[in-house]
Every structure is written in structure tokens, then in C-alpha cells.
């Protein structure tokens, strides 16, 4: 029973980190109509900046700078993306993000090399015991931080002028523009937000029981892609739901490793994708995605 409770908590915590990534991913998709394959590298950039800057600036300062830096990198990517010609098919902007990913990842991997960098987070390897269940402190705070950030985002999305124009723009860009929504600024704000969220997610991915930032951290964050897709790309609620599903599935696969050993070791890495494929076979548009219809 305790194992189950612990596993479920870990799943929620993991899901909350994925939610931060998947939310950024979904925002970018809504704003630019491209799947941002460079998102993993943006996250790695955030983590790397925190790791490098936490000694001179302290953890909080480093995180703030990292979030700003990652947001700026995302903005640069958005600027490049604006210039791309879409004549060769709708997948072209997405391919451009792969090019950005190659550049960013090469540079970061070169700088990080084989090292594992600590982020100097204040939680260390502390654990909390809540009702007989022992959990890592960092996990608890990741859940808290994600809940706060996602809550703030949802509130802004629902009640502010920015949220309204964002919703209007993603449902009909042309009509929104005619109503005075500034598409460029809006797109840029989505990318900035996505970048900042990725930096925060990087810190929690690296925190205990994770080991730190290494060159593959970005790839671990790729598990947020299935989260966004199985929820239905472009649906904020879907991205959040998908993150919980993926986090839970991964935590269950890790928690019940022994019982599942027949399927081979390292199953946890594969599980998010297996869940995604199964869900997409049943519902190609994702759990909460709207079925596409075309008017002729």
C-alpha cells in the first residue's frame, strides 16, 4: 500500500514537471503552429544556466536569470520561425525547430561534456514523511511550484486581456487581428513564457532523486512531447491531463520494476511513448483534442 501511495505521489510530481514542459510546448503550438522540437534543448539551456550561475548569483538569482535567458533563446527561435516559408508543406516550420535543436544541443553538449552539473537547489537530498509515505522534498516542491505556475497561467488565460486575445488568436488568427489583437506580440509572449517554464522544469528534473544536469537532460524532457500529444496538441487541458497520465505511467513502471522485469530493463523510458501510441491508435486527435473538420 505504501509503495502504491509513494508511486502515485512520484507520478504526480513527475507529471507536474512534465506539465511545465508540455504547457510551453502547447503554447508554442497554439501561437506558431509548429511543434517545437528544440524545446528539450531550451530546457537543457535553462538547466545549464542555473548550474553555471548558482555559485555567483545564488539559486534564486540563477533561476531568474536562467528563466530570462531561456525565454530570450525561445524568442530568438520564434523570430527565425517567422521568416520561414511555408510553401513546402505544413511540416516545414517544425523541421526548422529541429535545425535550431541541432545547433543548441551541439553547443550545450560540447560545453557540458561528460559532466553532471549540480543546480545548487535548496532541497538537496532531504526527504519528507507525510502520513507514513516518504517522499523527496524536491518532489514535493515541484508539485507545489507546478501547481502555482499552472494555476497562475490558467487564471491569466481565463481572466486577463492577454488570455482572451490568446484564445481568440488561436481559434481564428485573422478575425482576432481584425479585432486589434497584435499577433506578433502575442506569439512572442507565448514563446517567452514557454522558455521560462522550461527553465523551471529543468531545475526540478535535475533535483533529487534526479542526479543533476547532464547532456541527456533535454532528452528526458522529451517525454513531455507524448504528454502534449496524447492530450491533444493545442489543448491546454489536454497537455495537463497528458502530463499526469505520462508521469503516472512512468512512475508505475519505475515503482513496479521488479514485477515488470520480463519486459526488459529501462522500461520507464519507453512507457510514455507506449501510452501515447496506444491512445493515438484509439483517438488520433488525442484525449481532449477537437476532431478536425474542414469546410470546403
Amino acid at each position, binding site marked *: 500500500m505504501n509503495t502504491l501511495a509513494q508511486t502515485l505521489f512520484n507520478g504526480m510530481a513527475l507529471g507536474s514537471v512534465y506539465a511545465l514542459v508540455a504547457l510551453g510546448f502547447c503554447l508554442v503550438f497554439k501561437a506558431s503552429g509548429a511543434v517545437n522540437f528544440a524545446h528539450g534543448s531550451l530546457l537543457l539551456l535553462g538547466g545549464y544556466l542555473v548550474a553555471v550561475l548558482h555559485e555567483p548569483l545564488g539559486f534564486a538569482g540563477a533561476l531568474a536569470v536562467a528563466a530570462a535567458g531561456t525565454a530570450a533563446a525561445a524568442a530568438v527561435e520564434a523570430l527565425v520561425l517567422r521568416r520561414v516559408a511555408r510553401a513546402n508543406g505544413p511540416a516545414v516550420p517544425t523541421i526548422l525547430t529541429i535545425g535550431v535543436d541541432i545547433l543548441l544541443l551541439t553547443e550545450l553538449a560540447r560545453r557540458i561534456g561528460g559532466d553532471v552539473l549540480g543546480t545548487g537547489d535548496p532541497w538537496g537530498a532531504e526527504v519528507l514523511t507525510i502520513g507514513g509515505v516518504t517522499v523527496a522534498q524536491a518532489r514535493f516542491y515541484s508539485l507545489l511550484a507546478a501547481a502555482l505556475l499552472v494555476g497562475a497561467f490558467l487564471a491569466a488565460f481565463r481572466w486577463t486581456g492577454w488570455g482572451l486575445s490568446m484564445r481568440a488568436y488561436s481559434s481564428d488568427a485573422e478575425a482576432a487581428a481584425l479585432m486589434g489583437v497584435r499577433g506578433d506580440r502575442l506569439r512572442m509572449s507565448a514563446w517567452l513564457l514557454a522558455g521560462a517554464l522550461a527553465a523551471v522544469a529543468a531545475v526540478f528534473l535535475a533535483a533529487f532523486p534526479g542526479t543533476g544536469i547532464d547532456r541527456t537532460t533535454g532528452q528526458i524532457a522529451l517525454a513531455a512531447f507524448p504528454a502534449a500529444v496524447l492530450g491533444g496538441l493545442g489543448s491546454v487541458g489536454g497537455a495537463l491531463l497528458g502530463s499526469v497520465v505520462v508521469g503516472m505511467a512512468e512512475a508505475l513502471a519505475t515503482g513496479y520494476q521488479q514485477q515488470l522485469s520480463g519486459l526488459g530493463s529501462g522500461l520507464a523510458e519507453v512507457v510514455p511513448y507506449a501510452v501515447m501510441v496506444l491512445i*493515438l491508435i484509439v483517438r488520433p486527435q488525442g484525449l481532449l483534442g477537437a476532431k478536425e473538420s474542414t469546410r470546403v
Partner: protein
Amino acid sequence: MSDRSAKAHTSVTDRVRALGPRRIAALAGCLLLLAPPLYLSSFWLQTGLFAMVAVIAAIGLNLLVGTAGQLSLGHAFFLAVGAYGYTWLADDTHRSGTADLSGLGLPPLLAFVAAVLLAGVAGAAFSPLSGRLRGMYLGVATLALIFFGHHAMLNAESYTGGFNGRTVPEMEILGLSLGDADDGLAVLGVPFGGLERLWYFGLVLVAVAALAARNLLKGRPGRALGALRDSEVAAAVMGVPAARYRAAAFTVSSMYAGAAGALLALAAQRVVPDYFSLLLSMDMLAMIVIGGLGSVAGAAAGAVFVSVLPQLLAHYSDALPLVVSAGSAEPGLGSADAARFLYGAALVLTLVFAPGGLVSLRGGRAARALRGLPRPRRPAPTLPSTSPQPSAGATTGGDTLKEHTP
């Protein structure tokens, strides 16, 4: 459909006028490609073979991405299926070190064909997704293949040899071994070892792959896929079954990747899981974008560029500023990193400034593209591409459909 008569109209004149000199040039190029084994060292032959692998894989991926407009990040998986498939089918069951490796012990040529088919089966098995998901959605879904493949390569040890991989049995055609056999075969005084012999095998494969892709694109399937890419609704109205064509494009393209993987196994002589990573898939996408989406020649050019560049930089790292050889303590860029920077940048710049890729830069179009003027749409990729036709710029999108209009 009325395309047959329209096609006859354009192709007779176009071929005579435009393809004449090109065909001569192509023939000369083919003859030139026969020569390297006589002159080049094994390092360059190996590089050339890897380039051929990349060419075959890129032509296949281009059918899917460039023509059908579907994105795949999972093609490294199909290369792995081809490579491991060939190894498993051709190898005998034996004990290697501490591991028991299974194998079917088929004749190598048969194993090669079967490995390609195996990759095709794997591609077809993905059709519930590849037929129904569009564009970038499929791109994310195919990420799953990379992770499944990696998991299988590490865990199915009796088939794959696990983390350390397994050695690849030599190819043998009609009793002639394409490995480093001691049969004293020499041509014009040059001893012909495994790489020299494989070179010609690779050339044949590349030729078959290019011709098949060209014919596929030129005919009904190519037009149907292009129409699907440009407008699914229009294509459906014209009677193109979208799901079936998408799934078929994915399957064919996975067979190309399978053939490339099997050739890769032969050239590398050992298959290891780490090679077939997401990076390989990204490199392949870089190849086709740099070369020119939707064009067979472009895919080949991009593939050669991306696969040969790291080797070139490594070889001449002493002479180049900023670049140092791998593992060197000097400050500077490793050659592999430098190459990735170069083709990453090439990918981004291509998409921003010359979306048609290398093939679109012929005939003074570079200048136009650089000035940012609208580029006249390339005629359907595999038709003999000629100088820009005045009417080609009139419509944006739907170049593949354009031929249907009188």
C-alpha cells in the same frame, strides 16, 4: 484522369531540350563513381559507403517528408531494423564471448532482401498511426519508434547482442565474397578488399533506389502524395484515399531506410545500438531539407553533404582554423561538433532563405532567393526540372496539381 496526355505533351519537348545535356552529365558522373576504389584509400571508401547509406535513406525519407508532407523522426529505427535484421538473418546461431547469439544463417543476399522486407513490415505495422496522423503530429508519434527500438536493441540480447552489438556477416553474391577475403582479387593491379567490392554493391543499390523513387514520384503515386501534401481536401475530392497513400508512403520510406541500414551494417561490419539514435533521424531530416524537399537529386546531394562533412573536417582539421581533431586537448571545436554546427546552420538558413534547398539554387536562382524575392515554384520534383517557367510562379502551392490543368 487526363494527366497522361498532358504529360506526353510536356515530356516529349522537355526531355529532348532539357534532359539531353543533363543525361550526358549524369552518365559521366556515373562513370566517375566507378573509379574511386582504384584510387582512394580505405578511409575515403568507408566515408563514401556511409554517404551511399545516407543517400538511400534520405531518398526514402524525402518520399515521406518532401513529397507526402509527413514528418518522421523515427527513421533511425528502420535503419536499425534493416541493420539488425540483415545481421540476424544472415548470421549463424553461435556463441560470442559470453553471449549466445541467434541467427537464421540464410544466404547473405537473401538475408539482405528479407531485411528490407522486414523494415517494410515494421513500417506497415505503424500504419494505424502513419495513415491517420498528419504532418508534425506523426513526427511526435514516430519519436516512440526511437525509444521502442532502443529498448529492444538493449534488451533482446540474443538477437542484437545487447549494448555491445554484434558483428555483421559478410555479403556474398554468387560465390563472390564482398568481405576482406584472401582470394587475391585485384583490378588493374589494385588489390580489391571488402570495401572496394562493397563500393560497387552500394552503387547498384543507390542506382536502384534513385530510379525507383524517381519512377514512383513521376507516376500516379507521386502526384497523389503531392496533392495530399498541398491540400488533403482537394486530393480527396480527386479520389486519392488519404490514409492508404500516407501509410503506403511511410511503408515504402521505411523499406528505403531498411536497405540503407543493411548496407550500413555491411560497411561498418558491426552494429551497435547507440548509432541508431534520435540524432541520426535529425541528421537525415537535415539532409533532405538542405538538399531540397521533394527532389531525389536534392536528397542525394544533401545526404552527401551531411555525411561527408564531418569526415572532411576531421581529415583536414590541421589545416582549418578553429577546428581541432576529436580528443585533442587544444581549444577549439571538435570536428564532429563543427560539422553539426555547419549543417544545423545550413538547415536553418536553407529553410529561411532558400526553401527549395540546394537543387533550387541552380541556374541563378540563388541570387533571387538571396534577395528574398518570391521563388517560382519548382515544377513537380522528379520531372526533368528546367529553367524557371514563367507560369510557374503564378500559383502558390499545388505545383503537383498544376499539371492537370490544361
